């Protein structure tokens, strides 16, 4: 199933991010997915060598999850593959029955664990969306015909509503919509006002947007994100909230509460929620319960 079908039905679409392991032991990921996510989110994003750290592939992990009865979203970045490999992997996804894509430019190589690697960036997020659109129309990006019935995907992308240069981000968002993007997931939001302001401007594009959430695990993590992670800013009062009761922060309860509150505050402006739990998948059901979002039927 394509998740665009859910948006079309007016569903509040819930997704969560999972990262393939560094190695091939995937049992833990599958177990968590069944236990905490299967009945709570519609689909699972599978990251593509996230933060430029080499891991097992996104496509293979998507296939494993699909065989487990879960709905995967294949994340593809332009960092490691040129247009030949990218299009080839998109066709491979179709062959394996994977119909949901999230198309990204990707972090730069030097941010990860192979800083010596050659950065590719032959295409970027916008031209990658265009390439997928071409394949859906029966041609590759070079204009050569592709045999048989063309594949069809739900084509998604990301945007940063709390970026310090949100106008530049909106211009890029518009370019993505024009290229054929059908849904957006946002970078982690900690400032509901900025998200709502952004959505007021973004609604003209007529494309559903899922509110992106990162569970704030502790003060150090928030400070790190404020200094280093683009498009993410944890406000001071939220940091104070995490400082107030050290025990409850350590147990994760404060982070869970913050996420639930963000969902409640932004819900009316978003068409869904995308949770990046960074290993805290087990807390997702609680966040959704607290936000008043029932399990999926």
């Amino acid at each position, binding site marked *: 199933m394509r998740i665009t079908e859910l948006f079309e039905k007016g569903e509040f679409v819930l997704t969560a991010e999972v990262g393939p392991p560094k190695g091939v032991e995937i049992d833990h990921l599958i177990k968590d997915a069944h236990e905490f996510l299967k009945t709570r989110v519609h689909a699972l994003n599978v990251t593509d060598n996230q933060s430029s750290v080499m891991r097992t592939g996104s496509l293979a992990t998507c296939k494993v999850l699909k065989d487990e009865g879960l709905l995967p979203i294949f994340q593809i970045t332009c960092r490691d593959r040129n247009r030949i490999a990218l299009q080839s992997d998109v066709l491979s996804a179709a062959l394996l029955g994977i119909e949901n894509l999230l198309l990204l430019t990707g972090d730069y190589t030097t941010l990860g664990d192979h800083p010596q690697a050659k950065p590719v960036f032959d295409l970027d997020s916008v031209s990658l969306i265009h390439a997928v659109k071409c394949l859906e129309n029966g041609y590759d990006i070079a204009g050569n015909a592709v045999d048989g019935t063309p594949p069809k995907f739900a084509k998604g992308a*990301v945007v940063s509503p709390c970026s310090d240069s949100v*106008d530049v981000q909106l211009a890029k968002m*518009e370019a993505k919509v024009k290229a054929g993007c059908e849904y957006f997931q946002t970078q982690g939001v900690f400032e509901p006002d900025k998200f709502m302001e952004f959505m007021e401007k973004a609604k003209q594009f007529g494309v559903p947007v899922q509110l992106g959430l990162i569970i704030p695990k502790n003060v150090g993590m928030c400070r790190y994100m404020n200094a280093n992670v683009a498009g993410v800013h944890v406000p001071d009062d939220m940091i104070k909230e995490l400082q107030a009761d050290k025990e409850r922060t350590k147990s994760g309860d404060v982070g869970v509460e913050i996420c639930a509150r963000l969902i409640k505050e932004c819900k009316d402006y978003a068409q869904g929620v995308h949770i990046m739990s960074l290993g805290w998948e087990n807390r997702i059901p609680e966040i959704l319960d607290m936000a008043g979002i029932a399990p999926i039927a």
Partner: protein
Amino acid sequence: MLITQLKSKETIEELAQGKIVIINCHGCKEVYFPEHQADELQKELSASKEVTQIITTDYICNSENLMLQLKKHMDKINAADTILVFSCGVGIQTVAGQFQDKKVYSCCDTYQLPGFQGVTALNVDCGQCGECYLNGTGGICPITACSKSLINGQCGGAKNGMCEVDKDMECGWERIYRKLEKMNKLDNMKYDVPKVRNFGISKEK
């Protein structure tokens, strides 16, 4: 060695609006410049458009030298709407950098020829991509000013206007966007078919 090749006559004619000053750069041994074709085309332009001055000089990639050479033409330049530059990508960027409020357009595409390349110490750079983008980007080179050489806009990595790859470097796309904003040319970022680079031509022999 670099070669510059004229953009098509139609493209250049479209760029040539209002009062026009033309700057040719002939100085450099590292760059092949199609003098004869440029001459012919500029004659045609002078016949059909309002060309107020044609300046032929050298080493415009060096901003001090450039401003010295242009000194006696400043009245014409100040009165011009458009500056058309016939040079390599570095020269065009230097001119665009000096005249922030003018429309500075590139009339050439710069290619790389295999072999030894001259070393010139400059603060803007040209990646010799073979399909110069400067006319759409406010005279700032997306190939060299953006760490990922992106051509369709900013990635998600810029923080406080700085690049995700090098925190001491301003994000190239932030600069391009602000420049276009200032020029009232943000529409340059709106086009129907995304740009895709042609790596086949940039290394052509």
